[in-house]
C-alpha cells in the first residue's frame, strides 16, 4: 500500500470525520437553531404577547424586582433580563441545571404572562454547548469534539487544496449518487469553509479551559506555580445565591439605576440585573456591539449609590470579547442572523453528506460487517432521527395540556424518546440488513410530522394569525420546507434502491 500524504490525510479525515461527525452533526444542527433561540422560545410560549416597545416602565421593573425576590425566597438564583428588540418582555430567569427558565413579565404593567412551561430555544442551546450533560462533562466533550472538527477540517483542506476552485463551482445533483453526495460535501465545505473554521475555533476557545486546565501536571512545574489567589476571579463568579435565611433589604427603584448604568457604561441598552444581599449588578447588553462584554456597574442595594464599575479594556481582553461575540452572534441584525442560520445549515449538510459518503465508500467492501451496519443505524438516527425528535418537541409543545405537571420535562422526554426510538429502529433495520427500508420508513414519518406541524399549530388555536404572528409563520414555513426536503429524499430513495 502506498503511504502518501494524501492517503494519510484521507484516512484521518474519514475516520475522525465520521466518528466525531455523528455527534458534531447534532451539535451543529442544534447550534444552528440556537441562532434563533429567543424566537423559538417565543413560538413555544404563544401566551406571551410581544407588541410592546422594549422600554420597561417603573411599575414593571418594580414588579420584576418583587418577582425576583419571590424566586430567591425559593432558594433559586434568579435574575432579571430586560426587554430588547428581539425579546421585548421582562424575564426573571434562573438556571435549572440545563436551561435558563422563569416567569415572563409584561414590560408595561408588569403582570406575569400565563405562559406554558417550556424549555424553549434554550433547550437547543443547552444541547449545543453541553449535550445536556452539564457544564463540566458535557462542555468538555463538546470542546474535544471541536478540536476533532478542526483536525477533520485541516485534513480535508490538505486533501482538496489542489482542487479548491473546481470544488467551489462544481455541483452535479443529478449525477450518479456518490458523485452528487461528494459534490454536495465539497461545495458546502469549500463555500462555507471560513464560517466553519470560525465557528469551530471560537466555539472551542470559549470552553478551552475544560481541556487545557491552567494547572501543571508535572511536579517540577507545580513548585513554581503562582498561588491561586493571584488570579482575579471573573465578574460573574462574584455573585452567588444567598442563603434562604438571609434577610434581604428592599430594592431601590431600578429605573434610575439602569439609566445611571447606561451612562457609566456608555451603552444604549443594559440587559442583565443580578441581585446579591448587599449589591445590585447591572450588565451591558450583549447585543450592544460585536464584542461580547461583561461590563457592569455595581450599586448598593441599601440606597442605590454606585459602588464600582468594571469595564474590560486592553487588546487581549477585546480579542477574547471578539471571539465570544463572533460565536454567539448576539450583536447581529436580523439579516446577519439569517446568514448565520443558513451557514450553520450548510455546515450541517456538509457533515451529514460526509457521514453518507463514508458509508457509501465502504458499503461494497464492508457492507456485511456488523460494525458497518451499526454505523449505518447510528447515521439513520442522526440524520433522520434528530430532525424527527426536534419536530416532535414542537408537536409536544402544542399538544401537551397546559396545566400538566412537569410539562417542560415531558416535552423534553418526548424529544429524547422519539430520538431513541429512531436510533433503535435504524439500528435494528441496519442489523437485519434492511437499512434501506429503515431510511425510507423514518423519512416518511419525518415528512408527516414536519408537514403536519403547521396544521397542528393552526388547529390548537394557541395564538392569532393576524397580529404579531411573524414568528409563527416563519417557524411553520421552515418546518414545511424541511418536510418537503425530506419528501424529495424519500421519493429519490424509492426510485433508486441502494
Amino acid at each position, binding site marked *: *500500500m502506498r503511504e502518501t500524504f494524501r492517503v494519510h*490525510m484521507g484516512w484521518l479525515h474519514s475516520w475522525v470525520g465520521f466518528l466525531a461527525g455523528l455527534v458534531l452533526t447534532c451539535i451543529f444542527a442544534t447550534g444552528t437553531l440556537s441562532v434563533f433561540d429567543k424566537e423559538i422560545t417565543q413560538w413555544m410560549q404563544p401566551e406571551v404577547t410581544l407588541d410592546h416597545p422594549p422600554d420597561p416602565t417603573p411599575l414593571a421593573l418594580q414588579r420584576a424586582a418583587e418577582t425576583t425576590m419571590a424566586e430567591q425566597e425559593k432558594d433559586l438564583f434568579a435574575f432579571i433580563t430586560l426587554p430588547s428588540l428581539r425579546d421585548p418582555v421582562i424575564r426573571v430567569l434562573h438556571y435549572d441545571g440545563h436551561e435558563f427558565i422563569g416567569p415572563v413579565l409584561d414590560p408595561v404593567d408588569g403582570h406575569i404572562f400565563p405562559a406554558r412551561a417550556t424549555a424553549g430555544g434554550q433547550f437547543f442551546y443547552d444541547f449545543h454547548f453541553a449535550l445536556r450533560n452539564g457544564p463540566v462533562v458535557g462542555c468538555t466533550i463538546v470542546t474535544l469534539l471541536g478540536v476533532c472538527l478542526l483536525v477533520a477540517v485541516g485534513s480535508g483542506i490538505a486533501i482538496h487544496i489542489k482542487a479548491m476552485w473546481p470544488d467551489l463551482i462544481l455541483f452535479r445533483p443529478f449525477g450518479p449518487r456518490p458523485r452528487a453526495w461528494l459534490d454536495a460535501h465539497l461545495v458546502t465545505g469549500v463555500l462555507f469553509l471560513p464560517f466553519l473554521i470560525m465557528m469551530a475555533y471560537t466555539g472551542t476557545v470559549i470552553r*478551552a*479551559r475544560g481541556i*487545557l486546565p*491552567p494547572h501543571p501536571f508535572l511536579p517540577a512545574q507545580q513548585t513554581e506555580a503562582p498561588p491561586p489567589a*493571584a488570579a482575579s476571579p471573573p465578574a460573574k463568579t462574584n455573585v452567588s445565591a444567598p442563603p434562604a435565611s438571609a434577610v434581604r433589604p428592599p430594592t431601590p427603584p431600578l429605573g434610575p439605576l439602569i439609566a445611571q448604568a447606561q451612562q457609566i457604561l456608555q451603552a444604549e441598552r443594559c440587559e442583565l440585573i443580578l441581585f446579591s444581599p448587599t449589591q445590585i449588578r447591572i450588565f451591558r447588553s450583549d447585543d450592544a456591539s460585536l464584542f461580547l462584554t461583561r461590563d457592569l456597574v455595581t450599586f448598593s442595594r441599601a440606597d442605590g449609590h454606585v459602588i464600582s464599575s468594571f469595564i474590560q479594556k*486592553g487588546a487581549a481582553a477585546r480579542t477574547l470579547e471578539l471571539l465570544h461575540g463572533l460565536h454567539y452572534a448576539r450583536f447581529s441584525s436580523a439579516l446577519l442572523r439569517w446568514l448565520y442560520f443558513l451557514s450553520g445549515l450548510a455546515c450541517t449538510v456538509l457533515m451529514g453528506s460526509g457521514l453518507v459518503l463514508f458509508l457509501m465508500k465502504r458499503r461494497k467492501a464492508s457492507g456485511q460487517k456488523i460494525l458497518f451496519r451499526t454505523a449505518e443505524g447510528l447515521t439513520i438516527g442522526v440524520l433522520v432521527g434528530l430532525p424527527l425528535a426536534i419536530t416532535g418537541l414542537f408537536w409536544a409543545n402544542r399538544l401537551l395540556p397546559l396545566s400538566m405537571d412537569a410539562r417542560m420535562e415531558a416535552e423534553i422526554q418526548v424529544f429524547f424518546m422519539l430520538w431513541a426510538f429512531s436510533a433503535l429502529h435504524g439500528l435494528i433495520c441496519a442489523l437485519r440488513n434492511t437499512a434501506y427500508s429503515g431510511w425510507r420508513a423514518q423519512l416518511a414519518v419525518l415528512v408527516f410530522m414536519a408537514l403536519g406541524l403547521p396544521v397542528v399549530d393552526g388547529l390548537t388555536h394557541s395564538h392569532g394569525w393576524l397580529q404579531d404572528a411573524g414568528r409563527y409563520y416563519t417557524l411553520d414555513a421552515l418546518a414545511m420546507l424541511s418536510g418537503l426536503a425530506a419528501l424529495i429524499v424519500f421519493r429519490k430513495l424509492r426510485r433508486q434502491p441502494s
Partner: protein
Amino acid sequence: MPDTARKPFARHTAAAVSRQSEKRRAVYRRMAWLAAATVLAYLMAHFLVMHAVLGNGPENRLATTMAEAVAIALLPLLILLGYGARTHAWGLWVLLVLCGGMALYNRIAP
C-alpha cells in the same frame, strides 16, 4: 484433487490474506502515529498555557485565557503536523523537539 490444480488457488488466497494483514498492520501503525501525535501536541499546548500561568503577570487571568486561545489554534495544527508528516518520519520528531523545548523553557525562564 491434483496438486497442479490446487496451487494457483492457494497462492491467490495466501496473497489475499497477506494483503489484508498488511493493510491491518498499516491501520494499526496509523493509529499509533495519530495517538503519539495527539499526546505530543496536547503536551505542547499544555506547556504553552503553563507558560502563561507561570508568568504570573499583573493580567494573569487574561494572559492565561489568551494562551488558551493560542493553544487551541495550535493543537489541531500540531496534530496534523505530527501525523501528516509521518511519510518522511519527521512529524513526531518535530513535535518532540517543540515539546521538549517548551518544557525546558518553562523550567528555565517561566
